[in-house]
Every structure is written in structure tokens, then in C-alpha cells.
């Protein structure tokens, strides 16, 4: 018997489910279970029937009552969670928003990267709440301290997740860190911006701005991470740009054509950068330059996404401050030609002022060599522009430098360089030719249009115009 039993059983044990079949079967069964959850109300109703031996009325009416009660409860629950999303600190539903809604969403983020993205989103939410309270004059000192604390908690949580991610996937950790830092940077810029005034009774968000700036500084002082591989960066850049285009298309109906074209222009710049990186990457030696370009493209895309998705950020900064326009080579040539012409006219104005009888001899003596140098420098640029080959950056630098010399001279001579300009006259186009110019943000499109109209020469491509106002999407 034992022998038969053993032999028979050993043979039977060879009949097994494959791992895939077993997993598939489990999935089907669990899915069924999930789609047919055990209804607590049903159980309670049955229990009610059994327990209420002496109350026939309850037996008859209990189930419908419970059904209605369940429906009302579910409706109230959904309504509460929905309303809680609009709550700000001090509202009765704020605790539901932070401790329930957001915690539920936190639990849905399964990977460390998703967790970083969500903690970043929570950080953005806290700042938006503070702004709203400030604009309504409701941001008390205590409330601001609470927001600062919450911001710190979220940024610490995100950094902790990044540290965890670093252990398993260092490249993903760099990308996650980029996401967090970009968001903090944009929020910090927008809070610092003096244009943000809110309503007349608005409170200051200085404490929050300082806290963010400090956080930004802390991350900036961290050792520079090793950049992810080219392919990883390229994939991430594609992901981020797709996200940005999706946001752009989703806000189409809510924004003006000018606002859309402002953002589209930046997207085109980013696409161009990515294409440039791809060209660079074809040469082995250029791999690190390509990666750096991609990092910049990703950061600019993320800034643009933060800009598009945060109404408060849009109200306090211009898109140009967050993502300055990157001019194409053709645009730079047109602008340089224009600026050189304007500078030459300014040289003539300064020379005329120097030749005037009222000008002191000592001043004339002091300024003449500088003006001569400016004239020569600008003439060299104009001549070089007529040749097929030249270094655009050097020429731009020369014109910028000469322009500064002329401004100083005009200041000393107490004349205005714009006096002679008429409406039809060409005016200089401000391009971010030098890093310091870009850093101070003086090269904004808005400014470019305030006093300066890009005058395209006949047959030359026209410099795209951008919106002068802050986009409201």
C-alpha cells in the first residue's frame, strides 16, 4: 500500500502549475475578489435580520434604510474629500486634505521617484496655500511658521527618498533631485520677486522666501552629482517635454494666443537644445557636452511645467524670468547687426556732443580716445558681419562692451542717447549675450519690447514677438 501510494503520489506531484500559470490564476482570482468586494452593509443587514427577532418592522425596513444611509455616507465622504482639496490652513477641512487626501495619494506612489515627485507637489501646494493666505491678509506669523515647517518636512521627505534611490539607482536619484531642486528654485524666485504684491492688505511671505532660499542654497552647496547617461537623460527629456506639451494643450482654452506663443517659443527652444545635444552626442568626445545640454533642457522644461501648473507663480513672475528665450543663431545675427547700427549712431551723437563749445576741454580730452575706440570696435563688427566667417560671441561681446562705453560717455556728457531716435528709427535689441546679463534677468522679452522693437531687415527672418504681459492660464 505504502509503495503504491508513494509511487502514485510522486507521479501525481509532477503535475504542477507553471509559475506563470500560477501567477495568472492568482491575479484572476484576486481581481474577481476586488471587483466583488465583501459588502459590509450586506452582512450587517443579515445580522440585523437574525438579531431582531422581535421587531418585524425593522426587519422589513432595515435593509433599504441601510442602503440609503450607505449611499448618503458615501456621497458625503466624496463631497468632503473634494471640498477638502480647496482648504487652506485654518479651514476646518484642512486636516482632511493634508492627513487623508494627501496621505492616500502618498500611498499610491510606489517608487521612490514617484514619491519624490509627490513630495515636491505637496511642497508646491503648501507654498500656494501660503500665497493665497498672504494675498487675503490671513497669513499670520504662526501660519507662516507652520507652512515653513511643512515645506521643510516635504523637502526633507523628498531628499530622504532621493537618498534611498541613490542606493539602488544613482542616475534616477540625480533626475529626482533635479525635479525637486527646480521646483524649489522656481518657487523661490517667484517668492523673491518684488512684483508679487498680492492685494493691498496682503501679508509678506518673507519668512517662507528665506526658508526656500536657504533650502536652495543647501542643495546648491552639495557636491556636483555625476550626470546620468546620455540615453537616460534623453529619455527623461522626452518624457518631460511630452508632459509640458500635454499641459500646454490642456490650458489652451484658458490662455490667450500670445501667452500660448510665449510658452510655445520656449518649448521650441528646448526642442532645439535637445536636437543640438543629439547632434553633439554623435561624436564620442562630445558626450559630456551633450549630457549637459540635456540637463539644461530638462531643467528648463521642468521650470516651464511649474510655471504652467502654478497660478500663483504665473501671477508673480513672467515666463521670461523663469525660462528666458534662447535666441537662434539667425536671430542673434539680426540683433547684432541692428545693435551695431544703433551703437554707431550713438557714437555720432556722442562725438557731436563732444565737439560742442559748451563741453569742457578736460572732458573732451578724457573721452575722445574711448569714443574713438568705440567707433573702431563697432566698425570692425560691421565689417566682420559682412564676411562669411566670424565668431558671433566675440562680436556680440564687443558691441555690448562698446555700448556700455557709450552709455558712460552719455552720462558724463549729460545727454540722452535715445533723444535723437524717432518711432521709425531702429533701436537696439537686448540679447542675453553675456552671462552676467542673463543672470540679472535684464534680457527679458518684456523689456525687449518695452523700448526696443526688433526691426527686421528686408529679407531677413523676423524675430518672433513674445507676449508682453504675464501669461494667465
Amino acid at each position, binding site marked *: 500500500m505504502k509503495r503504491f*501510494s508513494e509511487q*502514485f503520489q510522486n*507521479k501525481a506531484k509532477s*503535475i504542477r*502549475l507553471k509559475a506563470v500559470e500560477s501567477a495568472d490564476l492568482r491575479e484572476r*482570482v484576486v481581481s*474577481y475578489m476586488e471587483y466583488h468586494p465583501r459588502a*459590509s452593509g450586506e452582512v450587517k443587514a443579515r445580522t440585523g435580520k437574525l438579531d431582531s427577532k422581535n421587531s418585524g418592522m425593522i426587519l422589513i425596513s432595515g435593509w433599504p434604510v441601510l442602503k440609503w444611509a450607505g449611499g448618503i455616507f458615501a456621497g458625503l465622504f466624496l463631497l468632503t474629500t473634494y471640498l477638502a482639496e480647496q482648504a487652506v490652513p485654518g479651514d476646518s477641512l484642512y486636516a482632511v486634505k493634508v492627513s487623508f487626501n494627501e496621505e492616500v495619494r502618498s500611498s499610491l506612489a510606489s517608487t521612490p521617484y514617484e514619491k519624490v515627485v509627490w513630495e515636491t507637489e505637496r511642497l508646491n501646494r503648501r507654498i500656494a496655500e501660503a500665497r493665497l493666505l498672504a494675498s487675503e491678509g490671513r497669513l499670520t506669523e504662526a501660519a507662516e511658521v507652520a507652512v515653513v515647517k511643512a515645506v521643510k518636512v516635504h523637502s526633507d521627505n523628498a531628499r530622504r527618498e532621493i537618498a534611498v534611490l541613490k542606493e539602488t539607482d544613482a542616475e534616477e536619484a540625480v533626475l529626482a533631485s533635479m525635479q525637486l531642486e527646480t521646483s524649489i528654485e522656481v518657487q523661490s524666485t517667484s517668492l523673491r520677486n518684488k512684483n508679487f504684491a498680492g492685494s493691498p492688505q496682503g501679508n509678506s511671505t518673507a519668512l517662507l522666501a528665506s526658508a526656500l532660499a536657504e533650502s536652495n542654497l543647501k542643495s546648491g552647496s552639495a557636491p556636483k552629482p555625476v550626470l546620468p547617461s546620455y540615453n537616460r537623460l534623453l529619455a527623461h527629456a522626452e518624457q518631460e517635454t511630452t508632459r509640458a506639451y500635454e499641459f500646454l494643450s490642456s490650458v489652451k482654452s484658458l490662455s490667450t494666443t500670445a501667452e500660448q506663443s510665449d510658452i510655445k517659443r520656449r518649448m521650441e527652444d528646448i526642442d532645439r537644445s535637445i536636437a543640438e545635444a543629439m547632434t553633439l552626442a554623435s561624436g564620442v568626445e562630445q558626450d559630456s557636452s551633450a549630457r549637459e545640454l540635456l540637463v539644461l533642457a530638462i531643467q528648463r522644461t521642468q521650470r516651464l511645467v511649474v510655471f504652467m501648473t502654478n497660478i500663483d507663480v504665473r501671477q508673480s513672475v513672467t515666463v521670461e524670468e523663469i525660462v528666458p528665450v534662447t535666441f537662434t543663431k539667425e536671430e542673434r545675427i539680426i540683433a547684432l547687426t541692428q545693435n551695431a547700427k544703433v551703437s554707431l549712431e550713438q557714437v555720432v551723437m556722442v562725438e557731436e556732443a563732444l565737439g560742442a563749445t559748451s563741453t569742457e576741454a578736460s572732458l573732451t580730452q578724457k573721452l575722445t580716445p574711448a569714443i574713438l575706440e568705440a567707433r573702431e570696435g563697432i566698425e570692425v563688427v560691421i565689417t566682420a558681419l559682412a564676411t562669411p566667417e566670424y565668431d558671433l560671441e566675440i562680436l556680440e561681446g564687443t558691441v555690448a562692451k562698446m555700448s556700455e562705453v557709450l552709455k558712460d560717455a552719455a552720462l558724463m556728457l549729460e545727454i540722452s542717447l535715445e533723444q535723437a531716435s524717432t518711432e521709425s528709427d531702429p533701436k537696439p535689441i537686448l540679447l542675453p549675450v553675456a552671462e552676467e546679463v542673463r543672470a540679472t534677468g535684464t534680457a527679458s522679452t518684456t523689456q525687449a519690447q518695452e523700448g526696443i522693437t526688433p526691426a527686421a531687415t528686408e529679407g531677413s527672418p523676423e524675430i518672433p514677438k513674445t507676449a508682453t504681459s504675464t501669461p494667465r492660464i
Partner: protein
Amino acid sequence: MRGQNSPDSMESHEDRYLKAFEDYHEALFRHASMRVSDREKAIDIVHDTFTKVWSYARSGQHIDSYRSFLYKVLNNLIIDEYRKRKEASLDSLLAIDGVDEGSFPELSENTVEALAATIDGKKAFELIAELPDVYREVIILRFVDELGPREISELIEESENVVSVRIHRALKMLRAKIDSHNERTEKNRTKQSKT
């Protein structure tokens, strides 16, 4: 085996159900696979078994022993499958045999053991598919799923005596099939050596 209105929490119902899946799905598949001789069909039957059991559990019913309950549902589904295939029902099989299984009260577990000792388990396994399902069922329940006569009797809703008789007859059938198989093999071998 099961009752109504458990005091268990909703979570414990789900946990117990999932644990039962982990513990028994492989054994149920093996059983179904041997009974229906169709791997895909066996997987479907096991799936249906679990969904039916969940439907029962979610309606607020309490299940004391998942093992017995699962086998019971599985067995019913296998019978349904046979009915679909329009094979002979249990009754007709018994009618063909012309034997009242309850007429062998002397057949005990000991006699079953003694008979089994005379059979080659490996060959029996290969030939089990040739047995009518009612016999295949008890053999599998007894020797693969290792259920005792009482458990089998509860499962197939027959008396323990009938179960013992059926196992006994199944073993005899298997032995006869093995002998006949051996004979055929022997004849073939002789033929081949002559040619």
C-alpha cells in the same frame, strides 16, 4: 463545515481566503487536471472554484474549513464538466456495472491497503485516465489529495462504505488494466522478436 454570519472582520475573511488560495490552488489544480485530463480546463475549473467560494464568503457566510469546501465546489464543477461532455453519469455507470456498491460491507481500509500493495503505482498513474470518472475521483482523492474515507464520503455525499467499495473496485480495475497492458506489451514484444 460552514455557517452563517461570522463574527470575523472583513479583513480576516479576505486574508483567510487568500491564504486558502496559496495553500490549496496547486493541489486543486493537480486534482482537476487528473480528473479532466485537460490542463487548460483544469485551470479554469480551479479559477471557477475560487470565485464561487469567494461569492459565497462575500455574501456574509462563514467557512470553517476552506479545504473541504474548496474540494466540494471543485468536485461539483468537475461533475458539471462531465455532464457538459455528455459522458455517462454516475448513476448510469453504476447501472452498467450492475453492482450496488453498498453491498460490500466487509470491505475495509485494510483490504484496500492489501489490494493496493499488489499494484505498481507508476503504471497505475499512467492508466488512471482510462478509468470512469467516479473511480478516478476516489483514487485521486484518496491517493493524491490524501483525504480519509470519511472526508471523501462527505465530499462526494456517499457513505464511507460506498467510498471504500469504490476505491477497492477502482484499484481492481487499475490492476486489471495494468495486467492487460502488460500482456499487450508482452505480445508485441514476442511478435517483434519473431519477425
